[in-house]
């Protein structure tokens, strides 16, 4: 381990002590898309002890333009991203423990994953989930690092409970979806620049160099050559419902997320059953073939196609309906298969 991380140990603010601390830490990365893959690779190379990677999606051809680690073979095999990330991480450093979790994060199922987690890295693509992370971070006293990007723009902010303002202090209401990868596209350097900031802050937090943690939100635009660091000394609000004196963690207690959602950057609707189920995928595949679908499947999912419609169904009952943004239609298609 010493030889492998010798250049990182030479960096004085980390040193041997810091390297040992990194090795003892457990990071949960929520999302294994562009930001998730980049952060997972960087933390693996940095020698983190354990990674839990949570993702609901699988690798597609259009991901390869910006999502590190993944290859054409992952696309051919339609591997879930969490699993694909785990396989690549094992090739980079077989000594890093990886827990690949294929699920759509909710307040409930995410909290169950946070036992003994030292840091949460945000690599999601929506504010609904970020607000859940933010509340869980405050409730369980786990730092998290916000990161997001679209086009050539990116934004990042470390949030340390008890020390910095939280995301809810900065955003009184959840923003309606602005520009997404779907409307604005994305170039890979915007991803890597956000991931660079997230990984740097992660290394500070994992080595417990709290004084070095950036007390500011960074926003940049790599194409227009803009960069601004916004200090947050006045941003913490006493009456914040997530981190204030009378906190209620509103994003944990309120009604569960919608059962259908349009995925960022895709002509795809996700449908989620009211309660998690455990499907018999092999049986489902056979049934679908019988119904005239063209079907491929692996131990994690079934993908089926008919009349230009493509549906991917995961073991927990969740499905991705491709080629549509109509949530009602998507739900109907889902029910026509799973009842």
């Amino acid at each position, binding site marked *: 381990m010493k030889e492998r991380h010798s250049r990182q140990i030479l960096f004085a603010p980390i040193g041997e002590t810091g390297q040992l601390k990194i090795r003892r830490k457990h990071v949960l990365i929520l*999302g294994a*898309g*562009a*930001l*998730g893959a980049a952060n997972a690779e960087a933390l693996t190379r940095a020698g983190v002890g354990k990674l839990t990677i949570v993702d609901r999606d699988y690798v597609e051809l259009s991901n390869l333009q910006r999502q590190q680690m993944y290859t054409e073979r992952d696309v051919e095999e339609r591997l879930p991203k969490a699993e694909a990330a785990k396989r690549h991480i094992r090739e980079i450093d077989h000594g890093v423990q990886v827990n690949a979790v294929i699920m759509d994060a909710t307040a409930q199922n995410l909290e169950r994953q946070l036992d003994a987690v030292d840091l949460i890295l*945000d*690599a*999601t*693509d*929506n*504010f609904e989930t*970020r607000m859940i992370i933010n509340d869980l971070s405050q409730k369980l006293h786990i730092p998290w690092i916000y*990161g*997001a*990007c*679209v*086009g050539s*723009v*990116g*934004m990042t902010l470390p949030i340390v409970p008890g020390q910095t*303002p939280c995301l809810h202090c*900065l*955003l*009184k*209401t*959840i*923003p*309606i*979806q*602005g*520009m*997404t*990868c779907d409307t*604005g596209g*994305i170039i890979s350097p915007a991803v890597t620049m*956000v991931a660079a900031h997230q990984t740097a802050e992660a290394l500070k937090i994992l080595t417990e160099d709290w004084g070095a943690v950036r007390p500011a*939100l960074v*926003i940049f*635009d790599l194409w*227009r050559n*803009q960069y*601004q*660091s*916004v*200090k*947050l*000394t*006045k*941003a913490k609000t006493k009456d914040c419902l997530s981190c204030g004196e009378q906190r209620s963690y509103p994003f944990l207690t309120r009604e569960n997320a919608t059962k259908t959602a349009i995925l*960022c*950057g895709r002509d795809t609707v996700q449908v989620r059953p009211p309660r998690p189920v455990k499907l018999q995928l092999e049986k489902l595949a056979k049934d679908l073939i019988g119904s005239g679908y063209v079907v491929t499947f692996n131990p994690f999912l079934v993908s089926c196609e008919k009349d230009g419609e493509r549906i991917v169904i995961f073991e927990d009952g969740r499905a991705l309906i491709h080629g549509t943004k109509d949530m009602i239609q998507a739900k109907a298609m889902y029910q026509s298969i799973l009842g």
Partner: protein
Amino acid sequence: MIKVLLFAQLRDESGKEAISIEGNGWSVAELKGKMEAEYQLGGLETVMTAVNEEFADDNTILSDGDTVAFIPPVSGG
């Protein structure tokens, strides 16, 4: 004069990266209202505001020479 910097989709919507505007004594909320009306900018209620590179709320009062940045939260990843 107040200098207003626009990021991300606000820049695309307005076609400008920076705007100079008379606004001495205005609050950030008043400036937002003015910008929505004059530059057809939408959704400024969820936009984060920095005054002279420091996070500011809607009640912050602006003075000549201030630089205000409007930063729409980015959600992709």
